[in-house]
């Protein structure tokens, strides 16, 4: 899953294709990893719970409903925070890309907040926003916004000048150029930004729940740690990984659908 540090190199790239050969290798690789884990626990190298124990706990927690509740709580925070961040990032990114003045005013702030890990904002957010959902949503919003805004902005500034000229000589006004050239031309960048934004939102929610929450996968892990409940920690980790992977795939699919016109090298 992409993290904030990917922003610098973010640009639309050729992506991995979902072909049966790749899937088979992926499955094989996972199976091998779980096999090793199982061997390690059987041989008594560690006190880790075996894959079997974890699976059993997962089923228990699933039947019990607790797992779903935790997943729902975490997912809800991510989606709300991410949606807010993305909705704000697109216009701000466009503004920065299109107007030099907006860029010089906004950019220092973004650069400044980008170097602060979102989690470092939590104490401040809790003090000022209270202990309910607001501080968590805010921190996730911030993480998603910062990742997505940089990408959008880069997309706008890297729109090929010849497209703009081609539109101008056909009689397009600035407004038309913006709507019919700049927006479509930067869509691939924006979607990459969304992908990175969703990744950092997901990374942030779990950490935020470890620090301050009464529900969610991160909160569950933190509770399990108090009781030395390793299987539950594992169940949470696996759930986090699976949800993260699923969300990422959904964005990648959307991206492919919306930018099918792109030349892929």
């Amino acid at each position, binding site marked *: 899953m992409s993290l904030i540090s990917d922003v610098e190199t973010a640009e639309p790239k050729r992506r991995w294709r979902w072909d049966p050969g790749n899937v088979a290798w992926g499955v094989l690789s996972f199976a091998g990893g779980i096999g090793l884990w199982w061997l390690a626990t059987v041989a008594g190298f560690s006190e880790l719970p075996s894959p079997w124990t974890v699976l059993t706990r997962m089923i228990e927690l699933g039947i019990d409903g607790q797992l779903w509740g935790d997943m729902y709580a975490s997912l809800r925070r991510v989606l709300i925070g991410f949606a807010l961040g993305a909705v704000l990032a697109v216009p701000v990114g466009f503004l920065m890309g299109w107007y030099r003045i907006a860029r010089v005013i906004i950019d220092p702030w973004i650069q400044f907040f980008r170097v602060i890990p979102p989690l470092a904002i939590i104490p401040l957010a809790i003090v000022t926003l209270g202990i309910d959902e607001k501080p968590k949503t805010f921190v996730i919003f911030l993480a998603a916004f910062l990742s997505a805004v940089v990408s959008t902005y880069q997309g706008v500034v890297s729109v*090929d000048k010849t*497209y703009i*000229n*081609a*539109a*101008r*000589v*056909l*009689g397009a006004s600035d407004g038309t150029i913006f709507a019919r050239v700049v927006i479509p031309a930067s869509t691939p960048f924006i979607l990459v930004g969304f992908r990175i934004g969703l990744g950092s939102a997901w990374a942030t929610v779990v950490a935020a729940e470890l620090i301050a929450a009464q529900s969610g996968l991160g909160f569950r892990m933190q509770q399990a740690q108090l009781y030395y409940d390793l299987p539950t920690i594992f169940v949470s980790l696996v759930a986090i990984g699976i949800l993260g992977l699923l969300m990422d795939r959904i964005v990648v699919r959307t991206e492919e659908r919306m930018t099918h*016109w792109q030349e892929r090298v």
Partner: protein
Amino acid sequence: MADPKIAFRNVSKVFGTGADAFTAIRDLTLEIADGEIVTVVGPSGCGKSTAMNMVAGLIPHSSGEVLVDGRPVSGPGPDRGVIFQQYALFPWLTVRENVEFGLKLQGLGRQERRKRAMHYLGLVGLQDFAESYPKTLSGGMKQRCAIARAYAVNPSVLLMDEPFGALDALTRVTLQNQLLDTWSKDRRTVMFITHDVDEAVFIASRVVVLAARPGRLQEIIEVDLPYPRDEEVRLSPEFMEIRNRVWRAVYRRDAQAA
């Protein structure tokens, strides 16, 4: 004589200011008549694209006058169609939508747009690719689509900046013939930039040779070959003779040294 379609009057273009100032074009005076087809050649960096972009209204000039139809150019407009070397097709639009782009800006209805787009795509032989995206086209097809897009808005001037430069020799010759064919029917004014001396002579009624550093007028060579021109023209001694004159004008220094 009738008013020229395009006129440069003592035009200079300076990029940058102060110590970074660079004179790309100095004191260029040139007239292109209505319905004339003129090619511009010269060494790389002599200001060919700069001169053309000033007519297109994409860059301002520093001094002098750039006139189209006797009026100073103040910005781009659909009366001057431009064909870029890099095709500049919008990759997110289909071939037909690319051609319709300018028509939509003119406020034409859906039916009319489609009809016109298909007409011009037919002229360049791309009607079967109307719903394809540019990424699926070859270089020559892309350029034909760009030509259709420029023609569709019915400009009275066509500005072409090395339009066939990136194409193979055979495609290039085909497109040159097509251009002359269309031109002989509609007699639009054409300003055509090229690196290729043969192409310059084959197409033009006059070849404008620019010199570099600073960009300025070197020579204007009349091409006294009757239209329509067919492939035989390329092999004629008259063609060879004019071609050699242009070549010498472009590579003046080499010619003097020899």
